[in-house]
């Protein structure tokens, strides 16, 4: 785990300031602010419907904010189209897995591997994408050259689809990965397989935001957490401290 304090790197990688979004009369995200420093793993938690996924959509451009600011590497990216955000190196997974169902699993990775970002990072060459794709799948726990690699993504079991989501992100060679409930629906064994991958990413210097309901696993690896309730930040700080706060206890106990 990489410990990064604010004094070491005063420049946040991502800065979210007073971000707000309403859908009709529902205030999904209300004046949310937080900073994210390079190498950090930030957990975003909160009850269902507290605005976590909307927050991710606002950062990555799938939803345009009503107000507020998103800054990445000091650049204002508020309201940018998702493909431009992705090209800057922000990758995300979806809570409801969204594979390219008709393409074989490894071909799913060809699409991010073709992005201009990957080409510029690898010196103007794409290389042998099929083999890069298979390497990436192996990295997230597909057995090398097993039949699942070649099956249409739509036919894969849930655990593999979650890994595939992660692999698609990795293919972009991102600096910031946003994982929207990556752990949901995974068995304990599958979790045990996927946690080390995330720890390895952190060691490699990747910055991560994790939206997660499985708090025990999240708290093992998170440096800080932000707690949302009804679209507002009700607490942020170290996992253990945050969970002691009465607001947070109430938000969780009140809904469960």
């Amino acid at each position, binding site marked *: 785990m990489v410990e990064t304090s604010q004094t070491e790197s005063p420049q946040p990688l991502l800065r979210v300031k007073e971000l707000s979004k309403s859908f009709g009369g529902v205030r999904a995200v209300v004046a949310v602010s937080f900073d994210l420093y390079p190498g950090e793993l930030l957990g975003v938690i909160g009850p269902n419907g507290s605005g976590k996924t909307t927050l991710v959509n606002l950062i*990555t451009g*799938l939803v345009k904010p009503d107000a507020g600011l998103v800054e990445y590497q000091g650049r204002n990216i508020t309201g940018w*189209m*998702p*493909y431009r955000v*992705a*090209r800057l190196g922000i*990758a*995300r997974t*979806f809570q409801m897995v*969204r*594979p*390219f*169902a*008709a*393409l074989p699993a490894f*071909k799913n990775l*060809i*699409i*991010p591997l*073709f*992005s*201009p*970002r990957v080409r510029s990072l690898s010196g103007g060459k794409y290389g042998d994408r099929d083999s890069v794709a298979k390497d990436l799948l192996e990295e997230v726990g597909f057995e090398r050259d097993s039949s699942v690699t070649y099956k249409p993504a739509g036919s894969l079991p849930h655990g593999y689809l979650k890994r595939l989501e992660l692999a*698609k992100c990795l*293919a*972009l060679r991102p600096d910031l990965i946003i994982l929207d409930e990556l752990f949901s629906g995974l068995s304990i064994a599958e979790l045990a397989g996927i946690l080390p991958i995330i720890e390895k990413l952190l060691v490699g210097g990747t910055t991560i935001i994790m939206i997660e309901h499985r708090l025990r696993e999240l708290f093992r690896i998170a440096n800080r957490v932000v707690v949302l309730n009804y679209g507002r930040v009700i607490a942020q700080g170290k996992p253990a401290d945050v969970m002691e706060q009465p607001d947070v206890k109430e938000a969780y106990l009140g809904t469960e």
Partner: protein
Amino acid sequence: MLEVTLIYGFVNSVILALVALGFSLTFGISGVSNFAYGAMYVLAGYVVWILMHKLAIPFFAAAALSVVLTAGLGAALYWFVLLRVRGMVLSEVIATFGVGLAILELFRYLGFTGFEYTLPSFTDGSIMIGSTYLDYQRVWIVGVGVFLAVGLYFFTHYTKLGLAFRGIAQEEKTALSLGINSDRVAGISVAFGSGLAAVAAILILPRGTISVNEGYDVLINAMAVCIIGGLGSTPGVIVASFIIGYAQMITDTFLGPHWKMIVSLVAILLILVIKPSGLFGKQKELEERM
């Protein structure tokens, strides 16, 4: 008699597939129903004619230029018209149909009707299959039709743009999040579809005269094939083309040529009642709602 029906039915089926491929490709990728498709087809024919007769450009150069111009017009249609109403299906249909109407009726207004508006065949002459004569133009149609169908398969399975096309078609949000500019890809898809309409026109129009009304017929045929095959499905296009192609040929032989267009319309009605998502359609929600 049977031999003629078989051979000409086959050619007719390939013609339908050629006409429908572009419409289907555009819809399959971007979900845009390009109702200006028939107008693009006719326009491509007139452009070739104008280039040849007014600017004295040789046929094959004029044909190539026409394909490029029509594709460019498709891109312009996307950027200047469709982009503004993107996501509102009815508005997309009305906007593209309006543009198509304007193009077709402009040609009528300018007086582009008459027997002199014809395109030359690629090669003159004919071959014998059994005891049936088949002119070389129809051989060309079959050859290019098969080539395009196979080429499109390889394009969508093995090239960067093709994979991006399929990615957008299957999961636009994921593709966007992975750095694909879906508006650009959708624009290219409309351009590509329009270019295919031009290729179809240049192959098919030499069989008769170019007429404004053919624009409407082409649109109905392309829609019939796509609805019956399942919108956006390439295998569906091929199978549906053969079903309608032979049905039309049999109707033509036994009832008379006026009934040909009825076949397409009845086929649309039947499939919408029996299986609204089409033979190969994946839009199951359409089924569930029915």
